[in-house]
């Protein structure tokens, strides 16, 4: 049984298509003097290349350029004008979001301060430090985190099921 050649066949491609450095070329040519497997592979490349070149070049239709020029507008197109509404949309969204959060916070603050327990909480160092509005903000943040965590298993399961649906389609 002949010994399998362990040379990287990509080097033979580089040699055949003249994409190899002089040093590497010398090395591989020396190897090929003793390796019939590599010589055979190079022969395959040559024969396949010659067979492929039996399919000769053809020309496109003579009037192709006229057809292309017909698709190009006569006048140079004007540069696209800047759409202010579209450009400002992300900033408007951010401002609206901040305002919405502030409205919810004010509403929550009003509700929380109505409870009688609030009177006792007034002396707590945390309330003294951040004020009643700060405490409301922290409560709002905790509430948001709780809702996200509560719904996360549902969201994860939904994403996974979609993923598998895609894989097994």
């Amino acid at each position, binding site marked *: 049984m002949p010994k399998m050649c362990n040379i990287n066949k990509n080097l033979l491609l*580089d040699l055949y298509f003249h*994409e190899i450095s002089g040093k590497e070329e010398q090395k591989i040519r020396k190897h090929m003097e003793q390796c019939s497997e590599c010589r055979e592979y190079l022969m395959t490349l040559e024969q396949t*290349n010659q*067979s492929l070149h039996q399919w000769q070049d*053809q*020309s496109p239709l003579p009037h192709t350029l006229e057809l292309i020029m017909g698709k190009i507008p006569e006048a140079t197109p004007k540069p696209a004008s800047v759409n202010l509404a579209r450009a400002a949309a992300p900033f408007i969204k951010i401002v609206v979001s901040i305002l919405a959060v502030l409205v919810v916070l004010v509403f929550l603050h009003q509700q929380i301060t109505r409870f009688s327990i609030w009177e006792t909480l007034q002396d707590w160092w945390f309330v003294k430090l951040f004020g009643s509005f700060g405490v409301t903000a922290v409560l709002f943040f905790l509430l948001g985190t709780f809702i996200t965590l509560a719904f996360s298993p549902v969201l994860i399961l939904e994403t996974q099921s979609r993923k598998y649906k895609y894989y097994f389609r």
Partner: protein
Amino acid sequence: MKTDNQLMKLLTAKDKTALKELYRRYEMQVFNFLLRYTGHRGIAQELIQDTFTRLWFAGHTFDPKKGNFKAWLYTIALNLARNEMSKKEYTYQFLAPDEVHNYRQVEDDPQTKGPDAVLEQKEIQTSVANALGQLQPHLREVIVMKNYQHLKFKEIARVTMTPESTIKARYHKAISELKKLLHAMEVTTHA
């Protein structure tokens, strides 16, 4: 004579003569690439128009620092061809030049070759096209770009946005499959 990059600068300034010059330079290469990749003259004819139309409209996106013009042009042509082949009920069906009116084959002159030789040539050509058509598109595109368009492996990697090692692996696979297919079709070389 202006270089491709100089012509691209003019094209970006909407100079139509630059587009005409680029078309004259690359019409054969792009058309034959599309023809051999898609196997359809009609589709290749449509796609060459789309390629140069897109060149006109997207010329400003060409950056000579990222690669040469030829590779960029092939990227446009390949993307259009892939898109076309994916959206239609498409089969690789090559017809010899005389079966389609108006198409001219280069070096195909019965006066110099003789009618039998021309006929034999066309049969071999159809067999080669059929063999190419049986390759998977990602293998065929490598063969077409390497053996017919003479792009370097690095350039093919850039055009297809695939690592060079993958391109070479695809080339080995394509050659192995083509060898079997051409042998089965008894396509011999005159070497």
